[in-house]
Every structure is written in structure tokens, then in C-alpha cells.
């Protein structure tokens, strides 16, 4: 088997997009059935956890709180072409969640992505809609403490910009 074929088949095994055939090279069959491949996939997952826990703590903690962390990061690994450059991973992860069906996950990830951009010197201003009052939610996530009581429902928005003392303000929409 030439280098290109071997690398393409190994990529397929890692991305779970390649199905082994009976006439496949013996080596590829050995890798496909090995515990090492499964463990390597776990390793990839743990690398993403290490990086995302540090670089997008708010969204990471929310997903953990909702017991969605493993499922969400696994889907991210499968669906996104994740660069080895650490700084690209959090934006890509947050972007992938910005239209999430769960409105709270969508709002927190949009908020954190905007905050990352502002902290990197982006002069723009970003508006993120919320269906609950965001202050208490953000406080509990930033400090990694439980929410004392359910956040009040309603139409709110956060405006994220370097012009504000803490880079954002919360506004009631009405």
C-alpha cells in the first residue's frame, strides 16, 4: 500500500468514515480492530477537553452542567476540521453551537465567542439575544457555582463591545 492510500485509510478510521472491506490490507484491518485505535480516539477527545475547558470556560461549564459535554465535544470532533492551533479551537467550537436548539446554549456560546473577539482587539459590537435574564447565569458560570434560583424568563440582550468597562452590558428588550 502506498503512503497516500495508507494515510487516507487511517484518516477514515480515525474519523469513523471508512468501513473496512474484506480485501483491505492486513495492516489496516489490524488497526481497525485494535484497542489502540479506540484509545487514540479517547486521547483526541481528552485533548479537546483540556483545551476547551481553558479557552471557553463558560460554555464548557454549561454543557457539563447539562450533561451534554461528552456528546457535544464528540460531535465537534466528528464534524469539524479542528486545527492543531489552540487559538482556533474555541472559536470553532463556539461557532458550531451558536445555532443550538437549546436557546441557553446558543446564547452562552454566542456571548462567549463575541467576548473572545473583543478581548482579541475586535473593535466591533455584538448583540446576543437571551430568553432568560443573563446576569445570574453568567455569574454562576464564570464562578463555576450553581445557580441559586431559576433565572427569570423574558426577552433580554447582551451587548458586547470593548467600549464597556467590563466588555458587555445586559439590557431588557422592550
Amino acid at each position, binding site marked *: 500500500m*502506498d*503512503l*497516500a492510500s*495508507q*494515510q*487516507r485509510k*487511517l*484518516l477514515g478510521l*480515525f*474519523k469513523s468514515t471508512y468501513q473496512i472491506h474484506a480485501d483491505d490490507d492486513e*495492516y489496516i484491518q*489490524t*488497526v481497525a480492530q*485494535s*484497542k*489502540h*485505535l479506540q*484509545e*487514540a480516539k*479517547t*486521547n*483526541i477527545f*481528552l*485533548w*479537546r477537553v*483540556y*483545551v476547551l*475547558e*481553558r479557552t471557553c470556560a463558560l460554555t464548557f461549564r454549561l454543557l457539563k452542567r447539562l450533561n451534554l459535554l461528552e456528546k457535544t465535544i464528540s460531535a465537534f*470532533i466528528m464534524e469539524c*476540521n*479542528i*486545527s*492543531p*492551533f*489552540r*487559538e*482556533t479551537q474555541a*472559536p470553532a467550537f463556539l461557532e458550531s453551537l451558536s445555532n443550538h436548539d437549546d436557546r441557553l446554549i446558543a446564547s452562552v456560546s454566542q456571548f462567549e465567542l463575541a467576548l473572545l473577539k473583543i478581548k*482579541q*482587539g475586535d473593535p466591533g459590537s455584538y448583540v446576543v439575544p437571551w430568553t432568560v435574564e443573563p446576569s445570574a447565569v453568567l455569574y454562576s458560570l464564570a464562578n463555576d457555582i450553581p445557580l441559586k434560583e431559576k433565572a427569570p424568563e423574558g426577552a433580554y440582550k447582551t451587548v458586547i463591545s470593548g467600549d464597556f468597562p467590563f466588555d458587555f452590558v445586559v439590557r431588557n428588550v422592550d
Partner: protein
Amino acid sequence: MAATATYADRQTKTGVVIGATYEGRDPALLERMLPLVDYIEVTLETISEMEDGELRLSDSVMGELKNLGNAVQTIVHGVSLSIGSHEGWSPMYLRLLDDFVEQVDVAWHSEHLGYTKVDGQHLGIMLAMPRTEEALDMLCKRVNAIQERYRLPFLLENIVHVVPDCPADYSDAAFLNALADRTGCGLILDVYNLECDAHNHGFDISAFLNELQFAHVRELHVACGVEHNGLLLDVHSQRTRSSTVELAQRVIRRSPGGIKVVVYEFMPEAIPGLGHTAIAEELARLREAFTD
């Protein structure tokens, strides 16, 4: 930060000095490390930031590195060049390296002997090269091109085998020997990676060391990860084990005068767990083990 000593001031009995990973943005850690190390290993993938949609070297980290002056020497250790990808290496990495070497004096630069992408798709992990004539020919051309481009010593590192080894034309040591012989590149021997391969795949370290030409080895890496499901993981999150230090000492004894530096590697995500004090203690321990 004021530099208090220069690397040229320090002499050791073995001729070997200590280096450590530093990824910037942590001046308190740097201050603890500087009296203990002679080399700082920088990884461009970690010190790069997004700016206007493009990856660039962080101005603040570059400022820190420029301020080091003669306190230490800087070595660049890449992760994403992907020198072994069949379709070609990563131009992005070389663009950042171009930028880096224009701003900071680099003693040498290095990469891992493997690949992280295939047809532009990132694997999310690094895979070792098959040790075939085809792979060797391709790697030699690329190493020669890199040496021509930068006119700096270039080193390649043995990486862990995360999946079973494939049928090969060369043994591990013979492949490294041939690559270095044909191109003149240097080698980094990651001692912890050898231990991982021995633990995970039954790799024969003694046979490997008996066959390896030590004249090519300029740098050693020591690190420690964790064991998971019976396999040793290369995650660089712990202080080194005594077995790793002893193996590195064994290698140094077989290569008098060749090996310049032993680098203790830890990933930035491990720093909060390890703590600055433990990192400084580890560096002091390694200094004692390797330089006296």
C-alpha cells in the same frame, strides 16, 4: 524582566543543560524557570492568536521572548508542520516560522517525525510515519528544503506510535539513522515516548538504543502523562518518573558530548494542576540529575 545570568555563563560537568517549555503569558512562571534553565522551547501553535481572521504570532508573547535577551537560548519546536503528509506540509506553519526567526534568535528548530493532516483534514492527533523507502525519500527531500530555507540546524523527534506499527523496510533506529545520514539533520530523542511505545506495544528500547547512531542526537525530551485503560498516554501533564530520568541518563552516557540539552515538556493546560512550585522543583531535580 531583567536577565540575571546568561546561558554562556553556565558550565556543567556533563556538558548537558536543561530546557523547558514556555508558551508565554505567564511571567510568574518564567521568573521561576529562568534561573534553572538554559533553553526555552517555544511552540508556535500555542503562541499564535487569531487577528482579523488570520493566525499570527502573539505580539505580547513575542515581546516576552525578545526581552529574554541573553538569559536563555530559544528553540522552536513545531507541532503542525506535518512533514509526513503525503500531499505536502503546512504552509501556515512555515509562514509563522518565517515570522518568528525574523524577530528572535533561534538556536535551532525542530518538528515531530509524523503527520497531523491528510488531504487537508486534521487528524486531531499525530501519527508516526511508515518506515518505508517511499516515506524516507519524501522526508529527505522535505528536510533538505527546510534546511535550505532557514539555514539553521533542524531536528526531528521520534513520536509515540498511537496505533500498531505497519510492515516496514527499516527498524525505528535504522530509519532515524538513514534520515539523519542522508540529510544531515539532527534528532531529538523523546525518552518518554520510548517508554510509552515499550509499555503500549512491547517496543524493545535496548535494541533501539544499540542500533541508533547517537552522533545525530542533539536534544532529549522528558515528560510524563497518565495511564488510561492500560495504555500510557503522551499528554505531558505530570512530573517525570524516575524511570524516565534514568533512561535519559543512560542515553547521555552513550553519547558523550553530543547531547546539548534535556527539555522538560509540559502542556499549558497542565500548569494550573502542576503549579509553578512543582515545575520549579522538577527543573531543579532535572538539573541535579543531568548536569552534575
